[in-house]
C-alpha cells in the first residue's frame, strides 16, 4: 500500500498532496422506552485526496477507491483554480509509523447478547422508578483504521476504538416533562460503560425530583460549576477561540488574541493536548501526520498558546501543535480540540461555597455552544446555594458568558480535577468528534443565568 500511494503521489505539480483512507465498523443499540428499538451494524470504506497549490486547496472525497490517480489530478486541478499566491505550510518531519489501537476491554470482543443484557439492565432500573414515563439509551462502539500518505513521504496507519453511551430518563406529569441525561465514553475500553447501576438509579430519581423543582429566577449569580460542567465551560468559553482557523486570517482578531494578553487570574491554567494519554481525545498523530502535543492555552491567566494546523501555524509564525482533525474521510481536517482542561488549584469544594450567601451550584452538562465571543452552556442539574450550603433543587439552568469578561470572573479553582469522556464536539458540519474535557470545581462571579 505504501509504495502504491507513494507512486500515485509522485509527479503532480502541487505544493503538497495527501491521501487518507478509512475503514471502519460500528455497532449501535438504541432503546426508546421498554423497546430495544434499533440494533444495527455498519461498515464503511472511503477516502479523500487533498492538494495545496499556491495557497489554494482542492479536496476530493469518495467511497470508491478505484482510479485514485484521477482523483489526485482532480484535487490538484481544483487547488490550481483557487491558488493565486504562495502556499504557507509549516514543515514537519515526514513520519512513517503504524499505530495500534489503545484497547483495554475491546468492545468488538463482547457479544451483542452481553451488551443487550447490560443495557436492558440499565433500562429496567430507569423504567421501574415510580413516575418515570420513558427512557432513551443509545450506545455505539466503532473501530476505525486510518491510512495516511503525503507527497512529502509520510505514511501512517492508525487504529482507534471508540465507545460511547448516552442514557436519559424522562419523567412526566400533568403535561410537564423533565429529562436527565448521562453521557459516557472511552478510547477503547468497554469497561467505561459497565457497572453504572448506581449512577443510573440516581439519574432516574433526579428526573422525578425535577417534576416539582422550581425554575431559577434569571439574573446574575455567583455560580459554582462541578468538574463536568466546568469542562464544558472551558471547551466553549475558551477552547474554540483557541482554534487558530477562527483567527489566522482576521488581523483584528489576531490583535485581540495576541499572546501575552491577560484573560484570567493568576490561578487559571488551561491546557489542550492529544498527547495526554488514555483519554477520548488522545491520539499519536493528527490528520496531517503531525505528532500530538500538549499545549498551554492559558498559563497563570495569560494567553500563552493556541491550536494549529500546519497552515495556520505557518501563517501565524507559530509552532504546529497537531490539532488538525477530520471526523471522517468526507471532510478535510480543520483545527479541533482534543482533551481540554483547567488545571487543578488548591481550594476544596466546601471552602468554595462557604462564603456564598446566595448562588447557584450547577452540575453535569446538557449542551454548550459558542459564537467565539459569547457562549452558552447548560447544566443537567442545579441547586441554590444559600448561606454557604447547597440548598433546594432547581430546574436545570442555561448559563451564558462573554470570553473577555467571564474568565476574569473565575475567582476560585478547586483541587479535584476530573475529566469527562462523554462529549462530542461539533464544528463546520463535523459532529460529534470524540473529545474529552475537564476541570476541578470552579467558582465564577457575576455569571448570567436565563430563567423566569
Amino acid at each position: 500500500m505504501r509504495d502504491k500511494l507513494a507512486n500515485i503521489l509522485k509527479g503532480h505539480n502541487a505544493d503538497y498532496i495527501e491521501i487518507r483512507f478509512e475503514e471502519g465498523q460500528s455497532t449501535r443499540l438504541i432503546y426508546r422506552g421498554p423497546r430495544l428499538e434499533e440494533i444495527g451494524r455498519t461498515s464503511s470504506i472511503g477516502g479523500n485526496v487533498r492538494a495545496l497549490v499556491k495557497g489554494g486547496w482542492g479536496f476530493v472525497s469518495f467511497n470508491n477507491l478505484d482510479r485514485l490517480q484521477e482523483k489526485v489530478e482532480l484535487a490538484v486541478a481544483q487547488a490550481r483554480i483557487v491558488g493565486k499566491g504562495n502556499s504557507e505550510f509549516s514543515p514537519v518531519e515526514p513520519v512513517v509509523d503504524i499505530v495500534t489501537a489503545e484497547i483495554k476491554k475491546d468492545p468488538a470482543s463482547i457479544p451483542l447478547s452481553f451488551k443487550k443484557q447490560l443495557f436492558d439492565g440499565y433500562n429496567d432500573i430507569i423504567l421501574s422508578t415510580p413516575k418515570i414515563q420513558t427512557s432513551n439509551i443509545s450506545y455505539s462502539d466503532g473501530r476505525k483504521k486510518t491510512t495516511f500518505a503525503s507527497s512529502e513521504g509520510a505514511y501512517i496507519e492508525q487504529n482507534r476504538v471508540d465507545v460511547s453511551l448516552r442514557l436519559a430518563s424522562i419523567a412526566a406529569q400533568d403535561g410537564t416533562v423533565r429529562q436527565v441525561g448521562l453521557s459516557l465514553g472511552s478510547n477503547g475500553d468497554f469497561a467505561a460503560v459497565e457497572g453504572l447501576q448506581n449512577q443510573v438509579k440516581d439519574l432516574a430519581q433526579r428526573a422525578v425530583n425535577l417534576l416539582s423543582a422550581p425554575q431559577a429566577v434569571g439574573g446574575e449569580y455567583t455560580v459554582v460549576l462541578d468538574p463536568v460542567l466546568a469542562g464544558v465551560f472551558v471547551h466553549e468559553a475558551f477552547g474554540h477561540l483557541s482554534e487558530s482557523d477562527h483567527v489566522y486570517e482576521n488581523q483584528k482578531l489576531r490583535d485581540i488574541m495576541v499572546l501575552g494578553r491577560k484573560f484570567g487570574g493568576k490561578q487559571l491554567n488551561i491546557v489542550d493536548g492529544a498527547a495526554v494519554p488514555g483519554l477520548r481525545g488522545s491520539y499519536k498523530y493528527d490528520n496531517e501526520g503531525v505528532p500530538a502535543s500538549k499545549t498551554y492555552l492559558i498559563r497563570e491567566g495569560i494567553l500563552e498558546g493556541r491550536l494549529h494546523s500546519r497552515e495556520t501555524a505557518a501563517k501565524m509564525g507559530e509552532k504546529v501543535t497537531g490539532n488538525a482533525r477530520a471526523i471522517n474521510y468526507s471532510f478535510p481536517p480543520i483545527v479541533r480540540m482534543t482533551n481540554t482542561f483547567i488545571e487543578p488549584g488548591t481550594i476544596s469544594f466546601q471552602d468554595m461555597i462557604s462564603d456564598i450567601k446566595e448562588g447557584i451550584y450547577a452540575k453535569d452538562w446538557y449542551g454548550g455552544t459558542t459564537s467565539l465571543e459569547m457562549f452558552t452552556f447548560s447544566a443537567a442539574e442545579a441547586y441554590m446555594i444559600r448561606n454557604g450550603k447547597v440548598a433546594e433543587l432547581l430546574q436545570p439552568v442555561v448559563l451564558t458568558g462573554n470570553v473577555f469578561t467571564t474568565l476574569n470572573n473565575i475567582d476560585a479553582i478547586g483541587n479535584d480535577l476530573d475529566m469527562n469522556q462523554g462529549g462530542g464536539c461539533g464544528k463546520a458540519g463535523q459532529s460529534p468528534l470524540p473529545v474529552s474535557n475537564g476541570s476541578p470545581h470552579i467558582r465564577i462571579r457575576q455569571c448570567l443565568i436565563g430563567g423566569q
Partner: protein
Amino acid sequence: MEEILSKAKKVAEQAEVFQVTSQRTPVKFEANQLKQIQTKESTSTALRLIKDGKIGFAQVSGSVDPETLINMAMETCNFGAAARFDFPGLNSYPGVEIYDPKVEQITIDEMVQIGEQLINTIKKHTPEILCEASIGKGTASVRITNSNGGKAGYEKSFFSVGIEGIIVLDSEMLFVGDSQSSCHPTLDFKALTDEVITQLELAKNKAESATQAMPVIFKPNGVASALISPLMTAFNGKIVFMGASPLKDKLGQQVFDKKLSMWDDATVPYQVASCPCDDEGVPGQKTPLIENGIVSQFLYDLQTAGLANTRSTGNGNRGGGLPSPSISSLIIKEGETSFSEMVKSVKQGLVIEQLIGATQGNILNGDFSGNVLLGYKIENGEIKGRVKDTMVSGNVYQALKQIEAIGNDVRWVEGFLRTPSIFCSGLSVTAK
C-alpha cells in the same frame, strides 16, 4: 440492489434495500478570498430485514458485498424489535419536481463568480467586514426496493448559497449572515445580500436591554433558532407514542393561538427537503400539524405508526440508521402584519435574528433559553440598536398560546422551514 434483495429474501420473511448516491461540489470562501473547492462523492446501501417477526439492520458505505451485508443484518435480527409493519408494495407517487438539470451545468467558475459578487456587494456597504461564503451544488439519487414488490426512487438536484460576515471592533464581535437553497440553481442573491446589509444597518448602534418580561419579535431565522426544535420534537409520533410529548393527549384541542397554523409538506416544488416518497417508500404528503391553533396530527414512519395503530404520514427518514419520524419541510402560515407594524406597536422589547444555545435545554417540555447572538432593542416603536450579553428564555407552549401577531414576511430559512416573523409577548429577558 436486486442481487442483495433476492439473496436476502431467501433468509428472511421480508427485506428492503435502500441505496443513496450523491455528488456535491462546495466552493468555499474564507476571509473574503476563495479558499477551497471540494468534490464529494458517496454511496451507501442499507438492508432492513424482518426475520421471525424481528427487525434487523445493516448499512455499508462504499462497495457492497451482498453476503457480508446480509450476514451483518442477520446478526442483529436475533435482538431486533418486533416488526409492526409490512414493507409497502407498489405505490403510486405524487409528481414532485425536485430535479433541475441546470444545476449540473453550473460551472465552478460561475460558482466562484457568485461568491465574489456576494462578498463584493456586502464589502461595498461595510468595507471592514470579513466574509465566509459557501456556494454548493449537487445531485442525489435514491433507490428503494423491497420483497413485497415495492419500488421507489428519485433524482434530486440542489443548490445552496450561504454567507456569514464578521466584524471585530475592539473586543467585540458582530456576526451577520443568511443562506438560501433550492433545487434550481437560480436563487435571489439580491434578497440575500439585502438581508445581510439590513442586519448590518440595524446593528450599527448599541443598545442595552433591561432585565424583565417583555415582548419579543422573532424574525424567520430567529423562529428557526428558538421555537422550532421543541415543536419538531413534540409532533414526532415516536415521542408522542413514548408519552414524552406534552401534546400526547391533545389531538383536536386548542393548544396554540388560533392565528397559528403549521404543516409538514414533502411536495413543495423545487424545495430541497421535498421528495415523492420518504426513505421507506411511503408517498410524500402534506400533513396538517396545527390548524388555527388546534393540534391536528403527528408525524409517523411505518414502525411507529404500527405501534401507535395509525398510518405512516410518509415521514420515515434516515440519518444513518433505521427510518424514524422526522419532518420534510415545515411551513408556518403567514399572517397579515408587516414587520414594521409589529415594531411600531412595541414600547419596549426585542427583535431576535439569532439565539445561540436555545435548543440545549429541556426541549421536550418546550423550554428554550439562549443568548442573543444577533438581536435589537425596540424603544417606543423604533429599533434602537444591537443588544449583547442578553438571554431570552421561555416555553413554546406559553409563548405560542397567545401570539400578538404573525408577520406577512414569510420566507424559507435553513432549507427546511418556511416561516413568517412571530411576535410573542411577555418573554423573560435577562441582561448583564
